[in-house]
């Protein structure tokens, strides 16, 4: 037996907790940034094969399918959230993803090549006419 690879390797080295903490804090920072820059959208966008095929308003409740020529998927909008309620894919990850309403979350159905995400609102553009504060 090859003893070289097995020989007394520790369960945890001295500096491993620091590496783990560093990675965790990186992930947490990214999550916080996404949470901070995300918004509750007005529209949800549905992509198929990387192309935008539908823009669904989240204000009005609806229940519909992707339509002809696209995978058999049914999505439902209610209370400003969108979710997939049926899909012909095998793993059903898209259904288990649940509801989304903020722009940093996506519903992905890989077998069907479908991505559902909430539209990102760019705050710095197109609001020159808005008045923020009147003193």
């Amino acid at each position, binding site marked *: 037996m090859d003893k070289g*690879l097995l020989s007394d390797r*520790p*369960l*945890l080295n001295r500096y491993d907790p620091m590496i783990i903490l560093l990675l965790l804090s990186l*992930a947490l920072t990214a999550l916080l940034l*996404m949470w901070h820059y995300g918004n509750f959208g007005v529209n949800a966008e549905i992509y198929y094969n990387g192309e935008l095929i539908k823009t669904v308003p989240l204000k009005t409740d609806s229940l519909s399918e992707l339509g002809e020529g696209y995978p058999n998927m049914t999505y439902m909008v209610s209370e400003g959230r969108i979710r997939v309620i049926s899909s012909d894919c*095998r793993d059903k*990850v898209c259904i288990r993803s649940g509801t989304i309403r903020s722009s*940093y979350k996506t519903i992905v159905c890989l077998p069907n090549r479908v991505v559902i995400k909430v539209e990102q609102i760019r705050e710095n553009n197109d609001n020159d006419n808005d008045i923020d504060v009147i003193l």
Partner: protein
Amino acid sequence: MNPYKSRAYYASVMGVMLALAVALTTIESLISLFLPMSGFGVRIGLSNVVIMTAALMMNMPSAFILTVMKSLFVALTRGLTAGLLSLSGGIPAFLIMALLFKRTRSSYILISIISAIAHMTGQLIASSILLKSIFSIYYAPMLIATSILSGVCTGVILNAELKMEWRLFVHNENAEGRPNPPQ
């Protein structure tokens, strides 16, 4: 164990290893249904324990063959997309794992974590290519966090399991630490 004792021995050991890896994949997909982050399609990666054991107890090429065979099995049972994703995660994870085991004295937990992150990165890149969009990158922070969790789990299991194997195969002792009767 010496994998080259005979061809039949090698084939049967590889068969058992592959069966274990596949069975653990099925079990962990059942477990992951009850985890809070099941929506991301994440799993613990228990079959990685089998592949790491193969890498350490047998040799690296055998472990690589197991990785590819497992992905082929996934492709047969869960569809081509799932198989491709399994392969695109498994190969980077295997390469990183092999490098760390050969060249460093990193701990089991660290190797498991880095291997899990490599698995996740490979899958994210593959899914971005498949979807022709980069939106799945939004999953990355959550997946790094779960990689750490699953890496700790598989690292602890691997450590416990290898200690057992060490006793069984190297010192020829049974589970209570007493020597086995001569055969």
